[in-house]
């Protein structure tokens, strides 16, 4: 495993830094096509990032759409094009937080939230997990949920950004507007709980074999 302060999968998931910077500069000058390429590069990571937190494909698609529209409208406000990735993730984290805030509020008033309706395909899959892959998938997410429920909100955010979204500690600090040492502290606590969760650890080790 590469040094954890680096983001090894950045190139794989969102192009090279230079390419992104160039695209951001062009998009900032009104290049719709350049922004389209940025969408191509970042749609999947952002979609996944939202999905990890909402576990709903429909919600993840809607929120991803909103995040990119907001990014498109506010791109001129981004001072440093090199920070596009962290800027986008920050927007995504804030949007997910807002989503849950709204959901909690609706739950208080017991208002039917159409947005939170389960994806019919997902419901179907849950009801009929015939394929082995689906069973494994179900099991995996069940363990992840169980583990993440033991984490505090900040620990969970830092842990997910680091190990599931593959952001570096420096990037996480920028996304959450925290110091790197604060990020490390939360990460340490999250890791401790991860190591103390034998079921998830065993599941991961078993799947590697």
């Amino acid at each position: 495993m590469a040094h954890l302060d680096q983001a090894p999968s950045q190139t794989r998931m969102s192009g090279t830094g230079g390419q992104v910077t160039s695209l951001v500069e062009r998009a900032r000058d009104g290049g719709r096509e350049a922004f389209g390429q940025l969408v191509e590069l970042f749609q999947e990571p952002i979609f996944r990032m939202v999905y990890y937190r909402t576990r709903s494909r429909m919600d993840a698609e809607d929120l991803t759409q909103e995040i990119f529209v907001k990014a498109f409208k506010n791109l001129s406000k981004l001072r440093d094009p090199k920070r596009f990735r962290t800027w986008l993730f920050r927007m995504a984290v804030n949007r997910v937080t807002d989503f849950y805030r709204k959901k909690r509020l609706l739950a208080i008033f017991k208002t039917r939230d159409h947005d939170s309706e389960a994806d019919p395909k997902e419901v179907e899959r849950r009801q009929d997990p015939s394929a082995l892959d689906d069973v494994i998938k179900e099991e995996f997410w069940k363990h992840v949920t169980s583990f993440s429920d033991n984490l505090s909100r900040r620990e969970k955010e830092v842990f997910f950004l680091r190990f599931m979204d593959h952001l570096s500690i420096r990037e996480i600090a920028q996304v959450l507007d925290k110091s790197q040492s604060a990020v490390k502290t939360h990460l340490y606590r999250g890791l401790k709980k991860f190591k103390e969760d034998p079921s998830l650890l065993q599941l991961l080790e078993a799947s590697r074999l």
Partner: protein
Amino acid sequence: MTKEKEAHLKETDLLQAVVDETDLSASLQEHLKTCRLCRSEKDRLELALAELGDRAEHFAPSPGRRVALPVGESTRRALSWYWNWRRTLVAGMVTAVAAIIVVYGTISVRNAEEAKLAALTQEIWEDELLMTEISALSENALPLFCSDISGESYPDFDEDFMNFVVPSTEADLVSSGGGGVRC
């Protein structure tokens, strides 16, 4: 053997190493480089974390639809140029209309003033005429034919002539020596 065991990384150090290896003390970093046991323990944890990321990515669905962007910047610019052009045209037209109103207004006001002045002049002239007539009337209120009757229109009928026609009663009193009857 005991010494070697004591020198191994504690769990807190191990977690610290996973978070950021450079945060460990120099001696612990050195130990981690050389100790196979500690290294494997750290690698084991890091592999599990890498597996967590890979599995999450693998088990997450792909987005079903592509992000749809709002009206593009280029279109917005074209629209903004169009609106600017329209705005300029409208502003120009408004300015032209305003100029026409100002010019027309100025001319109208000037014309109105001239007309007013002419009317005033006419009025003054009429007033003067009226005053002349009034003065003439105050001097001689009778119409001309009445003047003929009264003899005012005959310049030869002076006072002597009138005294001759109608003598003064005072003259009668003088001639009768004061014994006459006084009226």
